């Protein structure tokens, strides 16, 4: 305290590391349990609740079962999440360009029209949305989920992207306009190359949101062939006889795709979230 120059020396950091690691351990404890139980059957789980079993005793069969059960659901979720994310970003980029480029007549009113939607509780819409999809013959289809995902992400993405595009120097656009570039060309050649990281961050957030969605799929989907991962997990939770090892393996399998993607994109992820892009 009285020697400021060495205030940030590792020996002082030691306690901070300890505290952080303790909190992190608590935070990650559920996933430790998930992993270690996923290799056990009920019997060995009851006998040995806390510690992992020996690798020689690992029950890979749990994973085999979980894969068989969940792969179709994961594949559906993949289609829905990727399509919805692409849709969201493409339309939001167009919309954000509209708002950011010029103050067109009416754009102020339209902007407020977008912003107020942030306050609208999603739940209030479920019922009429359901009726709407019914009249559009979209109940029990994945297309409904894709469209809903794309529509749901608009407000947030346009909000973030507008701020971003507005910060691009105006002369870049003007120079392009001189060269006779259309707006679409400007968007494609100027905005898109510059907004790689922000698009990446938004893509990840949208993807996560769609991947985690379970209420609309639960309401809209009837046929097991169409189930997304969320519905699949809820059905798994409804079984009467619980084989915990199997269930935990299924949970792990459900987490794998995103964890793999995360491993490759974590820098983008962390920076994107830290940069305050989501400040709203």
């Amino acid at each position: 305290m009285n020697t400021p120059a060495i205030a940030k020396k590792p020996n002082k950091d030691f306690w901070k590391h300890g505290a952080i690691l303790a909190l992190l351990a608590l935070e990650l404890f559920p996933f430790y349990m998930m992993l270690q139980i996923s290799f056990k059957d009920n019997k060995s789980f009851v006998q040995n609740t806390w510690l992992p079993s020996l690798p020689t005793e690992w029950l890979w069969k749990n994973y085999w079962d979980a894969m068989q059960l969940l792969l179709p659901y994961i594949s559906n979720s993949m289609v829905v999440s990727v399509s919805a994310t692409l849709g969201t970003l493409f339309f939001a980029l167009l919309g954000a360009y509209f708002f950011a480029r010029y103050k067109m007549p009416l754009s102020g009113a339209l902007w407020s029209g977008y912003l107020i939607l942030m306050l609208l509780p999603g739940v209030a819409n479920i019922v009429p949305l359901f009726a709407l999809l019914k009249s559009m013959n979209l109940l029990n289809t994945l297309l409904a989920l894709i469209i809903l995902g794309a529509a749901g992400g608009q407000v947030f993405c346009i909000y973030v992207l507008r701020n971003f595009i507005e910060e691009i120097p105006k002369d870049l656009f003007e120079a392009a306009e001189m060269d006779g570039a259309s707006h679409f060309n400007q968007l494609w050649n100027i905005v898109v190359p510059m907004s790689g990281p922000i698009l990446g961050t938004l893509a990840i957030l949208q993807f996560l949101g769609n991947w985690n969605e379970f209420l609309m799929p639960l309401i809209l989907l009837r046929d097991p062939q169409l189930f997304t991962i969320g519905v699949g997990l809820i059905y798994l939770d409804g079984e009467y006889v619980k084989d915990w090892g199997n269930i935990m393996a299924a949970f792990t399998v459900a987490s794998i795709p995103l964890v793999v993607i995360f491993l490759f994109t974590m820098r983008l992820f962390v920076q994107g979230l830290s940069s305050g892009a989501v400040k709203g």
Partner: protein
Amino acid sequence: MSAPISPKKALAEWKLYLFLVPSLILILLFSYYPAISAIYHSFFRWNGGESKEFIGFQNYAQIFNDKIFLQSFLTIGILIVANLLKLIPSIIMAVFIHRLSSTKFQYWYRVLLVLPMVVPGLVTLFIWKFFFNPNLGALNYFMEFSGLKTLLVHLDQFFGWGGIFLNDFPISWLGEPQLIVPSLIIWGFPWIGAVGVLMFIAGLQSIGTEIYEAADLDGIGPIGKFIYIEFPLIITQIRVIVVLMMIGTLQSFGMQFLLLGENGGPGGAGMVPGLWMFNRAFIAGEFGYACALGLCLFVVILGLTFINNKFLRVEK
């Protein structure tokens, strides 16, 4: 800011409107239409099918006599207050990470923090549900092991809680009406939200090292530093998180639905406004009334946001 544009030029640039059309169609169809339809149907007795019957304000009148709905606001109020307190660990975590000298560690800790975010929310939810399991759950093991259970049993006997905690009886976290709200509060311990922590760290990063050095010179301790230097800088972030959290909590009901079922668990103790709306619509088939409930919820959220903007505004 977007560039101002003369009316003449705007006319020439009419094609720019086409850029907004797809997005606008999506919004109008899937956000505005349902919202307006909800307002319209809130004046009807409607079972979701063809037949509907105009009944004026009856649905709204019914809301004021709906004990379950009013009670659910109390529950959600408790949860919001709890969620406010649950921000504290995130702030502590952010400050700890920020004060580390090694940027490398700072980065890796942040990675580890984000990791739970990519695990599907439902998986986390079901693992926690498993923790609450009276026979096998980690929570009851912990209570027994730490002796907290014995303490609670004594408290129960002393205050006469009516035998929620008894020796030899596993604590039924999600099975006792009185324990449901506490369970929802314990939920997610140690309550570290990755988004919150990262945003706080981002806020803290604007503090230059010279400020810390000056504080050290003034003999300000670690807690003093937090109060005088760090807290004022992240107050904007806290405000944003609080607003988002309040709106999110008010709307949320998925967790209650999956954990406790459509009736909010034993005694309906876990009933929240969103779940009640869902229940009325998809269990009772009273879609018109559910729409009225949804609108009521919207008004509450709108009001809260308004109050928030008016009184909690913090200048950047």
